[in-house]
């Protein structure tokens, strides 16, 4: 039995390796994670960008660099042109009387002009001590919201790739009418189904591990990750089957997968941005529960009881979808 299941899996894997699809699906999400990792330190670290003339006093440019990024440009005209570009950047032009002209486009984020003004104010009043003592300390929490939410999103989103393999394999079988051949082969239908599903179950687990390692979360509980990733893999597999058996042409399958991005995005961004009282509107989505678990794991606050509860909900939703769809999946497999 196991041999037959593995035979189906190996056949799909061999076919995937031949056209480089399996290595690609394995590596592509990791490339995205690497790209994201490169991005994270830059995003949010700079709040203000400033352009000033090359002739500006070096000490002044250095001072402003303590607060934001500085670009040196030829003259005021070049600065005005740069300020008018689509990103948020202010121009500072020293005036003959010792003052400064602060040039703003007018569409910058609220409050950023005041920030630059406060920098100029502190430069112009170096000897004035504020009437209160100001101090900044921190809690030692170095995980930025972007790294946290981004990693969670990547782990949940990657589940689609496992489902995509199952879906593409099925669509391919349907296209070449090889599904009918299963009916006259020695393999049982459920063995065939399991064999087909195996890559969709394993890939999200591998992806979850790899994404967490790439993003630097080496201290998390990997057993919890494996348990949650298995649940995500279940969703992924059901998606693959439902889409795969419904579509007999790749174009419909690709478009269907595209439409699935919406509930994933809605679940993840909803979990991040919606206030607590609105969170129940997402309870129907297995991606929401997966996100909650992954978030707890990344924050290293995950209790096993919560992980099991979330997984139970995911499995219940997946089972419900499977129960509703199993007739259609069966029919599709025969077609």
């Amino acid at each position: 039995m196991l041999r037959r299941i593995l035979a189906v899996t190996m056949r799909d894997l061999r076919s995937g390796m031949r056209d480089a699809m399996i290595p690609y699906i394995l590596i592509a999400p990791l490339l995205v994670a690497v790209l994201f990792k490169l991005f994270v330190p830059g995003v949010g670290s700079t709040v203000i960008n400033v352009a000033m003339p090359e002739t500006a006093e070096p000490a002044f440019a250095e001072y402003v660099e303590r607060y934001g990024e500085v670009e040196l440009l030829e003259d005021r005209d070049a600065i005005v042109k740069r300020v008018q570009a689509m990103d948020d950047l202010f121009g500072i032009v020293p005036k003959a009387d010792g003052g400064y002209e602060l040039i703003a486009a007018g569409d910058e984020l609220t409050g950023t002009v005041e920030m630059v003004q406060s920098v100029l104010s502190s430069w112009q009043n170096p000897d004035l001590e504020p009437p209160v003592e100001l101090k900044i300390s921190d809690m030692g929490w170095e995980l930025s919201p972007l790294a946290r939410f981004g990693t969670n999103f990547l782990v949940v989103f990657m589940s689609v790739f496992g489902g995509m393999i199952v879906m593409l394999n099925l669509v391919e079988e349907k296209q070449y009418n090889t599904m009918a051949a299963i009916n006259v082969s020695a393999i049982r239908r459920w063995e065939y189904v399991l064999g087909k599903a195996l890559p969709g179950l394993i890939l999200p687990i591998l992806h979850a591990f790899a994404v967490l390692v790439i993003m630097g979360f080496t201290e998390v509980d990997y057993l919890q990750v494996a348990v949650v990733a298995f649940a995500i893999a279940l969703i992924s597999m059901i998606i693959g089957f439902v889409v795969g058996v419904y579509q007999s042409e790749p174009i419909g399958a690709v478009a269907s997968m595209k439409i699935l991005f919406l509930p994933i995005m809605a679940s993840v961004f909803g979990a991040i941005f919606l206030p607590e009282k609105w969170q129940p509107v997402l309870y129907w989505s297995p991606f929401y529960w997966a996100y909650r678990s992954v978030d707890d794991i990344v924050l290293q606050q995950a209790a096993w009881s919560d992980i099991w509860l979330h997984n139970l909900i995911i499995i219940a939703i997946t089972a419900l979808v499977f129960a509703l769809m199993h007739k259609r999946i069966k029919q599709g497999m025969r077609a």
Partner: protein
Amino acid sequence: MKLISTFLKDLKLSLRSYYIYIEIIMALLIIAVLLFVVPDNMSSGYRLLVHLDIENAEISQVVEQFMSKNDSSMIDEQIFADLDISKLAEEELEASESEEPGVQTIELVDSVELLRTGMEEDRNTVGMVVSFNEETAKLAMEFVLQGYESEQMRNLLQAQFAAPMTALLPGYVDQTELTVLDEAAEKLPAKVNLLPVLLLLNSSFVGLFIIAAYIFMDKEEGTIRALTVTPLRIREYLLSKVGIMLLTGIVTGSMTVLAVAPRHVHYGHFLVLMISFNLFGSALGLLIGSFYDTLTKSMGSLYLVIIVLALASVSYFMPAFSPLVIRLLPSYPMLFAIRETLLKSPDIGYIYTWAGVFIAIGLVLFALAEWRYRKTITV
């Protein structure tokens, strides 16, 4: 003539398959989310926990008054809004609905321990401990940050906080003259501001997602072999597919923009951009697809390209983060050009410059794709 009849035939086939309807459903879902879920004003202010560590009741009272009068001017919420993703607290949502966007929530807590616990529970919270230094006879304000904030941000926060207080001192100098280039610069409501990203990915780049699938489908079904014995040229065959993508993009894009921002959109300009960007997306999709012989193989590359192009939306939402590598992505000017069509006074020059540029690039990509397909399409 041949092109038109091929296009009509492709259109008939498309209408018979699921595909176009799936795109329309997707557009309807986006409309529903934007209209019913996304608020008009989205505040991304932060929560500030304050502990007043002052025994003297009078000083405490003075500080409390100071806080209540000066809260929004003393600390600017944008420092933290720019940290990117921050959870919207219920109070902040209410604040955003009260036409006072970005108002932060200030909560007083009884001890430093409670402040730290509160900050641990919500990592988007900032703390402040106010005490009185007997030695210097000065108020001492300690900002407690989470730890992920950059050095520049910390300096900025300090300067931002010190500036209004320093301004009260004798001898204060302010020789800064503010020049605002566009006093009437408009800020779009949140749901309208989201439109460019959704329109670009769903309608403009529809061909990038799907056009290769069309070609592979024809290839696998043997349609292309049949076409080689007809007078139809490869260019017309490919143009017909581009036409289907264009029609789909225009239909879904128009539905979305007219439903969500009917009073904002300059439809004529919007249509020009849709045509230009859609042609670019389809031509790029065709070119990428030409390097593969099956859909399965091409999908990885296509998705990767789409993800890379989608990165421009980070800079769109956080304009202070716009490194050169992002500004060089084609999607970067596309997003801002679409946004221009939603403004009261759009920058016509910007819109038509980029429309022209992407039509030109699209034509070059199409020519390259045609050259590639001439060599490979019947194989």
